[in-house]
């Protein structure tokens, strides 16, 4: 199926997310769609798959103009989309999940669906257990489930939105093989990404978006420098690696074990020193978050000890850790980090020093103005926090951190931020390491971020943790393989 997008416009308030985009996508090939965060890739794909109605422009499928009102319409026309976070139902079984959205009948076509699921999975070399719960699957397996589901429902064009985030190297290979196979079978495959190496590895052609406009198209062999220029308008670099001299130990983890219903990690030994940055790599759900939370006292370890500045804090609560200079910055800003409906000023009051009973608003206002300046937050003291953009919320979160922290624990410090904000965030963090001797312990699914900013790296693979790897002795390929479990040497074998 050939897809033609003609003069697509879509605005959100003042933002022109898609500005007159015209693009023809042939069948039987893998079409890349490249651009940084906020370039308009997702918007364009959501227009194509029925989530958004374009303000202007038309869509033609095999030369026929169509109107798409909903994702269901899109699927009827043969267009299916796989979202970055698979849109499925974790508490349901795989087979039930497979059948949700089956368009007709009163009864459930169980036998037929089971057969189709197994057949399609086998074709692509996926192993999916129809009776497992979706929640127990990895992100990669959930993607596989979505692929076979969309094919079962007759999809002729498949859109993949940043599918390689949070999946293992092996699963990535399987995914790419599946994509090539789909293209070979004559399907239309659209691959949305911001990663150049994936375009190079996979795509038969690529269209580059920047700030809502289609900047150009390219074909292999790709000129990577040219693609970078198209993406950013100018060459952007993260700057030189900054190495900070390390001081005395801040965090000591001794033979630590943490577990939840899904994953157990054990035998972790690590010493983190003043000014040091430790990155945690691994696919989502491999236990990084659990370890991070344990180091903040948010999760109680089942075995081992955690020491901060020579004090054994094992089993103590987060607030005890806070008193020792530990802070935790969650990834879900509006869910866990900030309080919606409260203003920036009120957040500053809550996070600041509190003397007496009555709030000193004047002083707080002054402090808020200062922080807004220092952290270049686009917002006013009386703006409700949820009215700020994602990047500004992240700046606000950093502005809330007290000075003189000993240990800063962060989940995905730059997720959802554009390149420049991300660089700014890390400049601020690194300055803390240098000037305040703060140690940083963070997890991220962006391997380049981990490589560029960490001193040492821990890799997680299905409940196992590697020895700390000095960042200068490894690269993206090596890390990617470790995350997928290849060449993995855990600290120690699981003890019975």
């Amino acid at each position, binding site marked *: 199926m050939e897809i033609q997008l003609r003069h697509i416009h879509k605005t959100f308030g003042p933002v022109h997310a898609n500005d007159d985009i015209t693009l023809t996508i042939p069948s039987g090939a893998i079409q890349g769609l490249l651009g940084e965060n906020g370039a308009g890739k997702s918007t364009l794909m959501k227009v194509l798959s029925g989530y958004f109605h374009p303000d202007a422009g038309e869509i033609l499928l095999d030369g026929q103009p169509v109107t798409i009102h909903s994702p269901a319409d899109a699927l009827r026309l043969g267009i299916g989309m796989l979202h970055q976070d698979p849109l499925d139902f974790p508490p349901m079984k795989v087979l039930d999940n497979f059948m949700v959205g089956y368009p007709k009948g009163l009864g459930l076509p169980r036998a037929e669906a089971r057969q189709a699921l197994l057949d399609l999975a086998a074709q692509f070399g996926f192993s999916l257990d129809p009776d497992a719960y979706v929640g127990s699957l990895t992100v990669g397996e959930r993607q596989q489930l979505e692929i076979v589901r969309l094919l079962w429902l007759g999809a002729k064009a498949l859109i993949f939105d940043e599918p390689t985030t949070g999946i293992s190297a092996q699963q990535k290979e399987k995914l790419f093989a599946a994509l090539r196979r789909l293209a070979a079978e004559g399907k239309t495959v659209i691959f949305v990404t911001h990663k150049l190496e994936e375009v190079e590895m996979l795509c038969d052609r690529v269209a580059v978006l920047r700030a809502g406009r289609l900047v150009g198209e390219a074909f292999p062999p790709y000129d990577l420098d040219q693609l970078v220029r198209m993406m950013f308008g100018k060459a952007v670099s993260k700057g030189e690696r900054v190495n900070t001299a390390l001081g005395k130990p801040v965090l000591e983890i001794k033979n630590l074990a943490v577990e939840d219903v899904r994953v157990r990690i054990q035998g972790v030994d690590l010493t983190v020193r003043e000014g040091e940055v430790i990155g945690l790599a691994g696919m989502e759900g491999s236990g990084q978050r659990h370890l991070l939370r344990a180091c903040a006292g948010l999760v109680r370890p089942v075995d081992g000890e955690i020491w901060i500045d020579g004090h054994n804090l094992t089993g103590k609560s*987060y*607030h005890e850790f*806070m008193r020792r200079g530990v802070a*935790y910055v*969650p990834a879900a800003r509006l*869910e*866990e*980090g*900030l*309080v*919606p*409906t*409260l203003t920036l000023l*009120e*957040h500053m*009051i*809550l*996070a600041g020093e*509190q003397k007496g*009973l*009555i*709030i000193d608003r004047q002083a707080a206002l002054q402090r808020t103005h200062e922080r807004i300046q220092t952290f270049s937050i686009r917002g006013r003291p009386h703006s409700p926090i949820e009215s700020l953009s994602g990047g500004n919320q992240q700046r606000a979160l950093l502005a*809330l951190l007290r000075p003189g922290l000993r240990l800063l624990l962060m989940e995905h410090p730059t997720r959802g931020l554009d390149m420049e904000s991300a660089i700014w965030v890390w400049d601020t963090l690194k300055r803390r390491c240098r000037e305040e001797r703060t140690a940083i312990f963070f997890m991220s699914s962006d391997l380049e971020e981990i490589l560029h900013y960490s001193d040492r790296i821990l890799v997680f693979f299905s409940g196992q943790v590697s020895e700390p790897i000095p960042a200068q002795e490894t690269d993206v390929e090596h890390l990617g393989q470790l995350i997928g479990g290849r060449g993995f040497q855990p600290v120690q074998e699981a003890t019975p």
Partner: protein
Amino acid sequence: MITSRWTQSLLFVLLAILVALLFTSAVLLMAGASPVAAYWYILKGAFGSWTKIADVAVAWVPLLLATSGLLMTFAAGLWNIGIEGQIVLGAIFTTWVLRVLQHSTLSPAVILFLAIAAGAIGGALWATLAGVLKVYGGVNEIFGGLGLDFVAVALILWLIFGPWKRPGIGSMSGTEPFPQQLWLPTLGQSRLSLWALLLGLVSIGMVYFLLSGTYFGLKLKAVGKNPRAAYLLGIPTTRYLMSAFLLSGLFAGLAGAVQVTAVYHRLIPAISSGYGWLGLMVSMLINFQPAWAAPVTLFFAALNIGSIQLPIVLKLDSSLSGVLQGALVLSFLLMSGVRQRWAHRHPQEAEHE
């Protein structure tokens, strides 16, 4: 378009009241009564004489106290449906202390003070129970509180018909009245106690101050809006949730104590008179803003008192006041939804706000 925010708000309030009145009028017509007559008698019943005005004030006090308590729990994002039971427990504790001390040599003022304090403690204890169930047991406070309401009612009935029954046979008319020196002094011939009134006004003033000017209030609001973030910001959430319950129960218990010492002078089965439920309605109507609590509770108290004589003069059930109050709250909720929708559709005009 230069409609200012204030005219717009006023328009919206008037519209909401109009809708509520229309609905209630329709209900009255269904019951075969004249709406005009009904509203007139309610007005007359509430403000027709000094005695009636004093009665309105008498009803105002417990409602104000209950609302004060509820605003604390609402600030923490909690639906303290258990408030009715907390009022009842306050009344029970007050009665208990009065029964124990009524023949002692302590001066009446001391006894009254102790009894009212005991009422506050009783309410706080009952609220703490709902709090423990919620915070430590994961039982939604609506169901925990509701269950405790029913238990409180059973308890009061058991006391009135059992251990505390009148000489002879227990009855719905309650326990034996206390000697007159143990009544809170009232104003002239009326049933209004200035002490109680003062208590109510001080309470709502305190709540206003706590919620708008103190660290405690701000933290409570943070816990109410997003407990996880509040915890990560260093606020001991469990302690704050429990404090909200405790304070709420304290005010509710005071309401019960006032009902015993100033209004009924004994324990009766319907001692809470539904003021807890009514306080919930008021809180929703004022969108949980303490500044509006005093006037709106006064208005609701007037409706309650005004409709008391409806059964006699118009052969109508006095639950009409509840219908009108409910219609008002519902109409406000719906209208504010309509208004937001309107603002959403006409962003240019709304920008003047």
